[in-house]
Structure formats: structure tokens, C-alpha cells
């Protein structure tokens, strides 16, 4: 046995084999995708590693007018994919380019980021804003919006299920992503993903999500409602900034204080909305 505490390594051939290995280990097995989080963890947590990168879940394609991404697709593979680059004006790639650094993006997978669900993560905030739906296989097949999963006991679910696919719906409008970290390489101190659709000169729909508050990214439905039916204009973005600064739930952690987060959340939402509206109006 090595310092990592891992006693066995399996290269699963398909989803069924991954699931049966997972169940054979009880709590001692773990699905290994990019390993960026799993192999960083404290040693001795995992007895049997089940590599799922060869089970046929690495692909990207258009689906139902939107985008379907296999769970073990790496962030680099997504960034290089033409369908992903074209999805809603390139929003997914705009986000992924801000995740970690190129060698880590060569390893990290979308499914791994979904399941790790770091509260400061760029990907969870975007999945929620974009209305992504997650598909999985466990005892049964299942699907649910990422937003709903994050409200429930998703960690328990993925101890005995494999996330297989993430589906991004089509949007008639545009999104933008804003992230603030201490440096280009750093994780977010705060992030925001916002989208708008403009019809007949007014906002027809809006999505506003803020993450790293320090809690995981969530939508702000009251901010979305305040946008719908309004004419996109400079003063509207200012009003939404004030609204977010008045109502967003934020907290302190060792990386940033609640006062700064409250103020900056409003600023990030305004910046993201301005860029999204500009793109949507083109």
C-alpha cells in the first residue's frame, strides 16, 4: 500500500462495471475522473480507485437545440469543441477559460466539477445560471436540473451513481460571466453568471446567479423578476446593482469579508448584465 492509502485501481470498461465496483467497495471506493480533486484529498480516504475515463462518456455535441456534454469530457476538450464554442455565444467556453490553468483543464472533467461542487467554483454557478440538467445512472437512471441537485443531498447520490451527461438548454439571448480572484490563476472570491433575452425592446427573460458568496452559486429570482419587462438601459443596471447589494445573502470566510462581498456582488451582476445585454442586442 502506498502513502495515498489506495489499495486497488480499476479501469472500468463501462458504466455497469463502474457501478458494480462502487457497490462492491461499500463506502471505500471512489470514481476517478480527472483526479484533480480526488488525488488532492487527504490520504487514506479511498481504498479502491475506479477510473471512469474509458467508459464512453467523453463527448460533446448539439442536443435538442442546446448542448450535451459527457461527464468525463475534460475542460480542454470542451474548449476545443466547435459546438461548445458556439453554444449561446460561447458562454460555456468563456467560463471554462477562467477555470484553473491549462494543465489542470487538460485533466479536470465537467462531471468531476459538477460533483465536487466547490462553493467557490466557477462551474456550479454557471450550471445553475444556464439551467443545466444532469443525467446519471445508479440503481436507476435519473435526471434533474443541477440547481435542484444542489439543493438536496447530491453527494450521497453520487456515492452510488455515475453522472453521465450534462445537458445545456438553448437560450434565445446571451450570457456573460464575471469572476474576481486575487490573480488570474486563483479561485473566485466572488463570481456571477447572468443572462438576458430581449424581445420588442424589453427584457423577456433574465437569469442572475452569484457564487462564492462564500456559499455555492445560486440564482437570485427577485433580481430576475425585477429585470423582466424593463427596457435595457444604463439606469436599469444601476437599479439591479442596488437591489443585489441590498438583498444578496453573503458571508465572511478567510478569503473575503461579507461587506466586500455584498458590494462587489452588485458590481459583478451589473457588469455581467451589461455585457449580456450588449451581446443579446447584436
Amino acid at each position: 500500500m502506498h502513502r495515498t492509502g489506495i489499495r486497488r485501481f480499476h479501469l472500468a470498461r463501462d458504466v455497469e462495471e463502474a457501478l458494480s465496483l462502487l457497490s462492491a467497495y461499500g463506502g471505500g471506493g471512489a470514481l476517478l475522473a480527472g483526479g484533480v480533486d480526488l488525488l488532492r484529498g487527504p490520504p487514506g480516504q479511498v481504498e479502491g480507485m475506479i477510473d471512469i475515463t474509458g467508459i464512453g462518456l467523453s463527448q460533446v455535441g448539439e442536443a435538442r437545440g442546446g448542448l450535451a456534454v459527457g461527464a468525463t469530457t475534460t475542460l480542454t476538450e470542451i474548449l476545443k469543441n466547435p459546438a461548445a464554442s458556439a453554444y449561446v455565444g460561447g458562454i460555456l467556453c468563456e467560463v471554462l477559460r477562467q477555470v484553473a490553468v491549462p494543465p489542470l483543464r487538460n485533466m479536470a472533467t465537467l462531471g468531476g466539477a459538477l460533483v465536487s461542487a466547490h462553493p467557490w467554483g466557477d462551474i456550479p454557478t454557471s450550471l445553475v445560471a444556464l439551467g443545466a440538467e444532469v443525467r446519471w445512472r445508479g440503481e436507476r437512471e435519473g435526471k434533474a436540473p443541477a440547481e435542484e441537485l444542489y439543493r438536496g443531498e447530491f453527494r450521497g447520490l453520487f456515492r452510488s451513481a455515475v453522472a453521465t451527461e450534462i445537458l445545456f438548454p438553448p437560450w434565445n439571448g446571451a450570457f456573460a460571466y464575471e469572476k474576481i480572484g486575487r490573480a488570474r490563476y486563483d479561485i473566485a472570491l466572488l463570481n456571477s453568471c447572468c443572462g438576458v433575452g430581449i424581445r420588442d425592446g424589453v427584457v423577456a427573460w433574465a437569469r442572475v446567479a452569484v457564487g462564492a458568496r462564500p456559499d455555492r452559486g445560486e440564482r437570485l429570482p427577485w433580481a430576475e423578476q425585477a429585470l423582466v419587462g424593463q427596457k435595457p438601459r444604463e439606469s436599469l443596471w444601476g437599479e439591479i446593482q442596488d437591489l443585489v447589494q441590498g438583498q444578496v445573502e453573503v458571508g465572511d470566510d478567510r478569503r473575503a469579508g461579507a461587506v466586500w462581498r455584498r458590494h462587489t456582488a452588485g458590481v459583478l451582476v451589473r457588469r455581467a448584465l451589461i455585457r449580456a445585454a450588449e451581446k443579446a442586442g447584436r
Partner: protein
Amino acid sequence: MKVTFNLNGGPQYLDVEPGEPLLWLLRQLGMKSVKEGCATGDCGACTVLVDGRAVRSCLMLAPQIQGKKVLTLEGLGTVDDPHPLQKAFLDSGAVQCGFCTPGMVLVAYELLLGNDNPTRDEVAEAISGNLCRCTGYVKIVDAVLLAAQWKREGRWR
């Protein structure tokens, strides 16, 4: 467990432990260019190329390279016969203590494989995950741009 892979152009057939980090395996095989800086994916000192892509060998297990091609700095050039990219680092003064250099060279190599005319920003992005505590980054970026120029001029291998 048995693992078969290609290391710097030569076949390897080895018995490895299931939980052995790739970084440790490579160092045991004499690839001392592969450094352990942080062991948490943050510094880039352990960078190697697997099937042409730069990865962190501290965050990979040895069995994950079954059937793959691994390139370390030892496979790129030697002291007597450095690769043009290594020579560009020397000519540009992009090396001080040298601890970060293998990782820097390999991420630059990955970039130049697909793009022989990168902008300064593209080079900065490519090396953004590799920390250097002594040279600073300006000369490293200069070195990669010089190597790119040599590549365009056909002085490459």
C-alpha cells in the same frame, strides 16, 4: 499491478503499486527533471506531457498511464544536445535556480506544438499555472517567443 506505457520514446513494462503517484514513479525511473513542489496541483513543477497534453504528475496515479505516451524533459533534449526550446530559455536568461524550468519548458512545448506564432498573452496564459520564485516571468515569456520564432524559421525538431 502491471503497466505498459511509452516513456520518452521507449517502451516500459513495469510493476507499480495501485496508489503510486505518477510523479514518484517517474523519479524512481531516473526522471529527475520531474519535481515535487507542492503535491497539490498548484505549482506546476511536476508537469509532464501525457499523449501530448501537459498534466500534473502529482495528481495522477501510475496506473492511469496504461497505454499512454509520457514525455518528460529528459525526452526533449540533453545537456550536450538541448532542444531549441531549452536553448531559447538559456539564451534569454530565463533560468535561475531551475526548479520550475522543466515544467515551464513542457507547458511551452505543448503550446508551440499547436501554435508557432503565439502572442505574449497566449504565452502568459500557457505558463500561468507554473510558479517561478526567482526568474520572474518576463524572460520566460521572451524565451518562449524566441523559440516560436525559431520554430517558424524551421530551427526546430
